[in-house]
């Protein structure tokens, strides 16, 4: 079949006489973490029609909004007790709304997720000023995720992850590139809404060139027209001078609207069942 010029993607790629233990073969470093890839051209991985990667996000790191053309399933191998992620479904409303005026970025450090609860004292003057400017936000659902969770992401859905904890977050992911929902070729393709990858991509030869975010490819004037902003701000969206990669350190507090965490989860008491009731609070 090869002699007849059958395209590589149509050749029989499953030679399963010998199997190997496979290690990650490529590491792409970012400012606040790294992504390790297994060679998706390895015969066994090629046969399975998948691509596998391991994402490591340092504490306070933000994995910037990204989507894929294939379905993705992930497992949280190691990490803080809780971290935040959001998978944006197109057309869905922004159901998480910040009713409090937001604090400026220059205020405070390390306030993670307790938005509207902490760090507000002594800053009322500036808050009032910002409140007059209408600094409130609304966005799609932000979820608390933890060690042991499986995460499923549909093709084309943008998602981001923020490590709220005090230890690195490790997530192993599988991209099903042979799934019929992926209508491109059998190469894993990452579409970045923000950030970039100056080192170039993984695996396939077409991915070896530096990767920019999607907005980078548009004429800044067209982008400015669509967003109804000035051209200079549109150019900022293109991250042309940004070498931080796709995982970045969050500067200042990360104040997204999130529901409070259940106390029992916070203290991990659920892991240690208690004996007979001993206090008025117990039933």
């Amino acid at each position, binding site marked *: 079949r090869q002699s007849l010029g059958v395209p590589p993607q149509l050749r029989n790629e499953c030679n399963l006489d010998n199997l190997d233990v496979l290690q990650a073969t490529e590491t792409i470093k970012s400012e606040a973490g790294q992504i390790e890839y297994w060679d998706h051209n390895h015969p066994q991985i090629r046969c399975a029609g998948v691509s596998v990667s391991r994402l490591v996000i340092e504490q306070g790191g*933000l994995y910037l909004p990204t989507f894929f053309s294939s379905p993705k399933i992930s497992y949280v191998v190691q990490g803080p007790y809780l971290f935040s992620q959001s998978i944006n479904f197109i057309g869905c409303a922004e159901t*998480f709304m910040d009713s409090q005026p937001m604090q400026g*970025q220059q205020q405070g450090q390390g306030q993670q997720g307790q938005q509207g609860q902490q760090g507000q004292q002594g800053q009322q003057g500036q808050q009032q000023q910002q409140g007059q400017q209408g600094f409130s936000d609304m966005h799609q659902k932000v979820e608390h995720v933890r060690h042991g969770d499986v995460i499923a992401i549909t093709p084309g859905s943008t998602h981001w992850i*923020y490590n709220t904890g005090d230890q690195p977050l490790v997530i192993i992911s599988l991209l099903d590139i042979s799934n019929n929902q992926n209508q*491109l070729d059998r190469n894993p393709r990452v579409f970045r809404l923000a950030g970039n990858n100056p080192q170039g991509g993984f695996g396939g030869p077409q991915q070896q060139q530096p990767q920019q975010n999607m907005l980078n490819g548009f004429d800044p004037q067209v982008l400015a027209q669509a967003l109804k902003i000035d051209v200079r701000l549109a150019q900022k969206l293109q991250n042309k001078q940004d070498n931080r990669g796709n995982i970045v350190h969050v500067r200042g507090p990360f104040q997204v609207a999130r529901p409070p965490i259940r106390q029992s989860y916070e203290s991990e008491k659920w892991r240690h069942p208690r004996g007979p009731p001993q206090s008025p609070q117990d039933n």
Partner: protein
Amino acid sequence: GLEETICSMRTHENIDDPARADVYKPNLGRVTSVNSLTLPILQFVRLSATRGIIQGNAMVLPKYNMNANEILYCTRGQARIQVVNDNGQNVLDQQVQKGQLVVIPQGFAYVVQSQNNFEWISFKTNADAMISTLVGRTSALRALPLEVLTNAYQISLEEARRIKFNTLETTLTHARSGQQQLIDQIVEA
């Protein structure tokens, strides 16, 4: 049972009728889609279609196909189309006119700027093809918290707020005139 089901299946649906439009703005244009929900036979052939008619000075906001490839064929008029690949590189920036065709792969972002009452028909390789807009009221950018935008693009909260909330439309918007752009550039300089 075939006589009552398969044999009598409806095989056509008109998407040129303005009254059937899914997106309609009197001064900008309209967009109409047909998919497996509006024409069930498409579930068998696993294809769908979109008809668009936009007037001069209108723009289809940047978007991408989530689960399909798209073949766009111009039936009338002229437009500038830009397509961006997964590396963030512009892979097409050309004028498209009547009789010409553009292939837009899954996930690739694109924007259409009408220059002369642009009309097109798009075929999509999925019976339930879905788009995701990058800009506008239901867009990916709008769904993100301001804090994600400020850290991602290294911009201020006020700038992030303008990016999220300035465009209220979902599909079609006015493209500013060249004169307005020139004024903006002078003000910026």
